[in-house]
């Protein structure tokens, strides 16, 4: 049994273990891994996601149990302090000694903090570990409590610096980027692409300061600003230093291994250091006079070291390492590949720039115009995978290479087919998976869908950038094998939503099991198909969610919105946002009686939080007795029609927006749709109801209403498009009936109108032909179906509280009247909130 000691449990150190356990030779080795951080290796590439969910567990490469299961000893929170090369032992900071046959150094790097005066002040952070992030979050919370407009700067406008900029935004501080060079991402971008990126980042609220040399950090104890030169200062309350990395080579250096002048442990192409029993991989390895700060070369180094140790001498690092990279920075695509900046002596550049849309594309081609040598993409990197493959494999390019980056006039792709790639083309560079491996996994029957390809080849599990290409390749290979590519809703149905809609309508099914038995694949359903079919049956049969409640989605099942501690929130309908003082008082009294947290929602109604399952029917009984009804805030159905005050009160109003808003809300309440639907009605073009941000929006103008369709807020905000002008109330309702019904019939599951409309072949013009000109001859049917839904409306809460059988589900325990004793609330601003998740 040979002993291997791995020093460092970062991404590359972990990858070494992962690659090793896959080898049959592993049985002859015993691996001990040391990590200085308290937790097992995590995905540092996606560190900024921690700010979104603060879930350290989600970033883990593998849980601690994985190491145990594979017989690897993982020692976290203990630093290796010394190597004794003669006795082949290491000593830890806790003075424990371990012997090794092979030593693998994967200590990575530490952030470089430039020696600026005042850099030790409180409020100055580095961006590397989860502990760093936790420190920042705590400090930011303190700042915001004192000053909601607090500012934070990032020192360094490189790749990591911009990631840190996003973190600052997520923390709710005013973000500033301070860069020493005259451009952003100086290692990846040329000056023009940097300017395009800068415009884009500024448009989303990032403040960028270039060519700034920081002289000192200002402040007495804690940071209050940065000084760049005389009279040139920037007030900031927090600073994140992201000015590059330094390899953590102390261990190697102290034990006499050969190191580079500017740090890093020198390795040969076998990843061996100057001591043949010691390997170095990742960001401490100095290979070809270079430190490679990307994860893909680090993973390759880990694989080479594993192969060398088990005696596969032929496995070595290539001389040229591909430093191509694609990432999404704060929602902006940025990619560079091959030789991004190319001197004119080596070839020509073709550049496409459109600053109005924040787009920049540059490709560099050889003088004879036959080879792609590299390039830069900002704003839209959807062609990156193909361009990168063409570059890597030296594939032929079109006679006019400009076609590679210009939008094709005939809509045809200049790239040809993914199937044309050579088998050795590396599709996933993080995991080194080739096109051949992906196709083979499908051809030998190991995988029959994208998820299976990912799990058996590991393609797409690193940075995830290649996922679209893996999907294209999988689908193309399946097709070439004559296997139908499934567009079904889940493993239980090969049919899509539209087909299921037609089937249920024609056959008149009223139970989930009927649909599953007659049209499913023999399974028992799941959390994808059950709520979908529940929603379809509700739309088609005008049912409420009380029907067959066990197939309803989490919220529909209990007719309330489940919140983070498993309690629910209650939202009665307040059509158009119009409410009498008596009803307001009733809401207040009920909220007080049941000790509910109360807040006005984004849809201008009142949300009561913290109701237990047992309390829901009690609360609703009282609400209904005061004339309220369900607000369907929990359903994929109409939420609110938001209105401005309109011509009844407003001195600018052109029409009665409140009256019309109430009429529309009452018309469409309760109908089940592929996703939630929101409406808005504004009394004039000042648009106080924000109607153009809704699925349907109306704005009163001289001579009628302007109707806008297909808008939403959410992750991808989209303005609704102008559909018809100056139409009367009756025409609005006619068009809306047809539009909503057409959407409910044809959209994909969980697709809002905005996404549906955007992908509708023929676009807005086609939609007008169907709805206004009745090109498909279905307008009558659509109107009739909608009218049936409107006529059959019934408040499902009223239905539930009057039916003892339906009420049975509102108990936490089936065998006790007690409440969930796991619930803990803590006080917040005179109300209560759930105890935060740990």
């Amino acid at each position: 049994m040979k002993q291997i000691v791995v020093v460092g449990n970062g991404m590359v150190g972990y990858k070494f273990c992962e690659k090793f356990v896959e080898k049959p030779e592993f049985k002859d080795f015993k691996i001990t891994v040391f990590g200085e951080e308290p937790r097992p290796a995590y995905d540092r590439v996606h560190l900024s996601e921690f700010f979104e969910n603060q879930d350290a567990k989600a970033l883990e490469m593998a849980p601690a149990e994985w190491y145990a299961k594979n017989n690897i000893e993982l020692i976290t929170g203990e630093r290796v302090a010394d190597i004794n090369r003669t006795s082949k032992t290491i000593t830890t900071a806790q003075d424990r000694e371990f012997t090794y046959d092979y030593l693998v150094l994967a200590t990575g790097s530490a952030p470089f903090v430039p020696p600026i005066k005042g850099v030790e002040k409180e409020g100055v952070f580095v961006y590397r570990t989860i502990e760093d992030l936790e420190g920042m979050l705590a400090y930011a919370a303190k700042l915001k409590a004192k000053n909601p407009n607090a500012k934070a700067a990032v020192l360094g406008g490189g790749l990591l610096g911009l990631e840190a900029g996003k973190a600052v935004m997520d923390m709710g501080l005013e973000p500033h980027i301070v860069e020493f060079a005259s451009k952003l991402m100086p290692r990846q971008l040329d000056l023009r692409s940097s300017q395009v990126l800068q415009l884009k980042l500024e448009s989303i609220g990032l403040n960028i300061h270039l060519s700034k040399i920081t002289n000192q950090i200002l402040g007495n104890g804690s940071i209050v600003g940065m000084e760049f030169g005389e009279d040139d200062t920037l007030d900031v309350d927090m600073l994140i230093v992201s000015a590059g990395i330094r390899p953590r080579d102390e261990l190697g250096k102290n034990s006499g291994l050969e190191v580079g002048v500017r740090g890093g442990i020198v390795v040969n192409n076998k990843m061996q250091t100057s001591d043949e029993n010691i390997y170095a991989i990742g960001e401490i390895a100095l290979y070809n006079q270079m430190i490679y700060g990307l994860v893909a070369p680090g993973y390759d180094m880990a694989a080479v070291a594993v192969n060398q140790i088990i005696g596969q001498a032929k496995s070595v690092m290539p001389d040229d390492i591909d430093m191509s990279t694609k990432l999404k920075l704060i929602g902006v695509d940025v990619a560079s590949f091959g030789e991004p900046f190319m001197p004119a002596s080596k070839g020509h550049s073709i550049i496409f720039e459109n600053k109005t849309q924040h787009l920049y594309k540059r490709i560099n081609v050889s003088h004879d115009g036959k080879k792609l040598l590299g390039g830069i993409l900002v704003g839209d990197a959807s062609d990156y995978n193909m361009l990168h493959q063409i570059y890597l494999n030296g594939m032929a390019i079109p006679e006019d290479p400009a076609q590679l980056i210009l939008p094709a006039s005939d809509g045809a792709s200049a790239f040809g087919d993914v199937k044309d790639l050579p088998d050795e083309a590396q599709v996933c560079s993080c995991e080194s998976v080739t096109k051949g491996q992906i196709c083979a996994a499908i051809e030998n029957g190991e995988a029959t869908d994208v998820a299976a390809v990912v799990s058996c080849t590991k393609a797409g599990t690193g940075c995830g950038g290649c996922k679209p290409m893996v999907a294209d390749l999988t689908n193309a290979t399946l097709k070439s094998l004559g296997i139908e590519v499934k567009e079904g809703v889940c493993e239980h149905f090969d049919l899509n939503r539209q087909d299921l809609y037609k089937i249920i309508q024609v056959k008149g099914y009223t139970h989930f099991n009927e649909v599953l038995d007659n049209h499913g694949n023999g399974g028992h359903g799941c959390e994808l198909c059950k709520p979908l079919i529940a929603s379809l049956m509700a739309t088609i049969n005008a049912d409420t969610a009380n029907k067959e409640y066990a197939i309803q989605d989490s919220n529909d099942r209990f007719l309330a919105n489940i919140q983070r501690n498993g309690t629910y929130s209650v939202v009665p309908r307040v059509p158009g946002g119009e409410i009498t003082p008596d009803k307001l008082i009733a809401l207040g009294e009920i909220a007080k009686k049941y000790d509910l947290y109360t807040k006005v929602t984004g849809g201008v109604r009142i949300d009561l939080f913290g109701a237990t399952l047992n309390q829901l029917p009690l609360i609703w009984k009282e609400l209904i007795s005061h004339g309220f009804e369900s607000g369907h805030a929990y359903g994929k159905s109409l939420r609110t029609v938001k209105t401005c005050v309109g011509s009844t009160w407003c001195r600018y109003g052109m029409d009665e927006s409140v009256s019309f808003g109430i009429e529309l809300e009452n018309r469409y309440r309760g109908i089940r749709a592929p996703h939630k639907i929101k409406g808005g009605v504004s009394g004039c073009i000042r648009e106080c109801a924000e109607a153009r941000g809704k699925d349907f929006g109306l704005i009163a103008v001289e001579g009628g209403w302007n109707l806008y369709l297909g808008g939403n807020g959410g992750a991808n905000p989209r303005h609704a498009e102008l559909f018809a002008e100056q139409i009367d109330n009756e025409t609005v309702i006619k068009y809306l009936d047809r539009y909503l019904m057409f959407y409910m019939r044809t959209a994909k599951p969980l697709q809002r109108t905005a996404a549906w409309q955007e992908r509708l072949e023929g676009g807005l013009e086609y939609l007008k032909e169907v709805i206004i000109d009745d090109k498909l001859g279905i307008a009558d049917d659509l109107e009739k179906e909608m009218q049936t839904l409107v006529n059959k409306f019934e408040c499902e809460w009223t239905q539930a509280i009057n039916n003892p059988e339906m009420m049975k589900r509102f108990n936490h325990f089936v065998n006790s009247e007690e409440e969930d004793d796991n619930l803990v609330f803590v006080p917040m601003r005179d109300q209560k909130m759930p105890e935060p998740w740990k």
Partner: protein
Amino acid sequence: MEEILDTYKTTKLEDVKIWFKAASIHDFPADGGACVKYKNKQIAVFNFARIGKWYACQNVCPHKMEMVLSRGMIGDDKGIPKVACPLHKKTFSLEDGENLNGDMDAIATYPVKIEEENVYIGFSD
């Protein structure tokens, strides 16, 4: 937090010492679940009517430690009966508690038997 999880340990049929009479079979929805209180434990019990089987597991989802699994939807993942947590749709095998769409620790499962239209859950303590 960890203490909650310590309360729940998978019980094998052969280790059952107590069969706890929980409720009538009519108190559970077809192809759905409800929660049973036993001493300081909360147990999710599912009536998988489609396959004529009953399952029991801890009610607490190990992801965020909330008592919610009994309110989850059930179904199957390539033939394995499962429950999906209503909070974030983490799925767990009802047979052995394994987390099917992630690498969380398995949840504890318990044997169930039906006698004279009553549901009994098996515990070792």
